[in-house]
């Protein structure tokens, strides 16, 4: 028995170093060598200032910007507290929250479902093409821009399914809004 315990402790210690230190450090070195941008979070830098990550959504509620999805991460898009709402389909708070969002976004036409539902991570960087196109009339009015220009902008930012097959088509809200600010 004593021999077994000694073996177990030695085995734990030596494999812990291999699997818990050598392996992740080795992967970090390789990742940095081959995919330096991806490994460090794909930050967008403007004038020496990091202004976001391509993969992490930001909160937008000004009518002059395209809005992302409601977020249950902290107070909203808090990337240190990723989370969904975890409210079930029969939850009254969920139904109330969705109807309040519908009031905000709607101009009579039914609102695309993803625009008024909270994502799983609370950090979803994307909305569906339907949700982006839906917001064009509001952004056009607020920015005094033509709808055709905005339509072109949105269509340019639609990321199709990966390899034409995988996932769903998406529009990255932060990238879309950054491009929106570039248009004068």
């Amino acid at each position, binding site marked *: 028995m004593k021999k*077994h315990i*000694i073996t*177990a402790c030695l085995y734990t210690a030596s494999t*812990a170093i291999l*699997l*818990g230190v050598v392996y*992740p450090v*080795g*992967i*970090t070195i*390789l*990742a940095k060598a*081959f*995919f330096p941008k*991806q*490994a*460090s*979070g794909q*930050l967008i830098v403007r004038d020496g200032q*990091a202004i*976001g*990550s391509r*993969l992490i959504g*930001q*909160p*937008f509620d000004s009518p002059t910007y395209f809005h992302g999805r409601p977020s249950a991460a902290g*107070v909203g898009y808090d*990337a*240190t507290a*990723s*989370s*969904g*709402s*975890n*409210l*079930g*389909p*029969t939850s*009254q708070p969920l139904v109330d929250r969705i*109807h309040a969002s519908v009031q905000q976004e*709607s101009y009579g*036409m*039914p609102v695309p*479902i993803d625009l008024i*539902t909270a*994502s*799983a*991570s609370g*950090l979803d*960087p994307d909305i569906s093409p*339907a*949700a982006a196109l839906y917001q064009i009339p509001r952004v056009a009015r607020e920015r005094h821009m033509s709808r055709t220009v905005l339509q072109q902008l949105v269509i340019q930012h639609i990321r199709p*399914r990966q390899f034409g*097959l*995988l*996932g*769903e*088509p*998406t529009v990255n809200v932060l990238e879309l*809004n950054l491009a929106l600010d570039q248009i004068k």
Partner: protein
Amino acid sequence: MSLNGWLQIALFITLVLLLARPMGSYITQVFGRRRTLLDPILVPCERVLYRITGIDAAHEMRWTEYAGSMLVFSAATLVLTYLVERLQHLLPLNPQHLPGVESALALNTAISFTTNTNWQAYTPESTMSYLTQMLGLATHNFWSAAVGMALAMALVRGIARRESKTLGNFWVDLTRGTFWILLPMSAVVALALVSQGVIQNFKPYDSVKLLQAQQLVGSDGKPTTITTQTIPQGPVASQEAIKMLGTNGGGFFNANSAHPFENPTPLSNLLQMLCIFLLPAGLVVSLGQMVGSPRHGWAVLAAMLIFWFAGTLVCYWAEVQPNPLLHGVDQHVSMLQSGGNMEGKEVRFGIANSTLFATVTTDASCGAVNSMHDSFMPIGGMVPMINILLGEVVFGGVGAGLYGMLVFVVIAVFIAGLMVGRTPEYLGKKIEAYDVQMCMLYVLIFPLVILGLSAVTVLMPHLGLSSLSNHGPHGLSEILYAYTSATGNNGSAFMGLNANTPWYNYSLAVAMFFGRYMMIVPMLALAGSLAGKKIVPASAGTFPVTTPLFTVLLAGVILIVGALTFFPVLSLGPVLEHLLLRAGHTF
């Protein structure tokens, strides 16, 4: 449901089936100690490890010694994780200066990762340091998966060997599973994930300036303005790879595989789902090869496929249904949106990939999630729950799925024997009273723990009802899912339940512990008993275990055992919620 959705699902399962045979053959080589391509590098490493730890690789163990070694090793690794968590504030690689983890949570987490459950009652990005994640948690992703594979191999040897007292050497099985299978595969998968955008670094968290400042009303009623966002960092990809390959499921971040840094693209998502099924599918093929009846392996795999398909179909169907309580909302499936129930799902995955992932992660005992099961439609959320309640034998966890399935195989053979009035045989071994008793012990401990602890929690309101975030039948589902997930060593959750309370931390720790070790011991006893038996030559009365009839009988036994045990409680939870949703009730 859309054509594209079904194409993606078909692609996934085709890849699993194509990879199952090469994977299975490789597993057979590794555990049969036959030559492999990696030997020149790994054999010297293996020898060094045996020398340091004083392991005699030629020593063969009886089932009791095998079980004892496994328990002692599990205890040692559990202690290490507990200490690393408690002392993380004194240890290096803690750039966010996170404090040591509180004792109940640390114990729950240590048990959770030791038992391959990876139940997480905490928000990792604000609780665990980089060192804790690497040394305390990711190590368990290797160890607990390697232990699972070793145990499955012990049972397979029990079936394959004749008149033998021993089942192999636990340490050798553990080492070969880790060195030859888990470690090299994880390294490849980790780099593939990084290429898709999964982060891998030791930087402190970044701070970025928001494009549009956020105006909020604080809890004290004063308006506040938020102008920055903190972007977490860390060695994610290395942990993500083994999290999926070892069917562990413990996320680096709270949102798990829904977090864009853990699962950034549809390709990374496909890769993660493949990783969940790859080893379990390979192990079933390997079973056929090792017992000398490859067709038996495929017959078992066919029974698994039936359940996988049924779960995927029902879950996908349920989640594209519009929620009848919502008005002024476009919930239709179209070219421009995935439609359906998008609460708790990510746009890049849509409904098809979210429901496929939910089915796969609970068929196996993975428990990683790329969508929030708590927000699923009642029937959609019932599918993952049923998958775990059936014993996670549909592909199942690495190792755990195979030995769980073999217990059901023995029961199916036993029932077939009863029906024709002959002593049942399984691959030439007579199944006797002791073997069936061990199987029934395995089958009965599971519902006893789940239903017992759920009932106590529901009946003692001061214990845990204040943790619920949903009420009505959905509240019962939250509690039931928690104990189901813990006992089944799955680790996914209806995450609305605040499980970081003393009652849940301790009671779920008990559930995880019983769900792992109280089931492993009878299983190894069965293995020991089978190994000692003589082979009876097959006769006209032998029930063949390679036919479609066997596949149907096996699936029937799993379904009947699961349904009879759990139908009452499911009817009070998700089924009732479904009916009330149709009638327009909210809570």
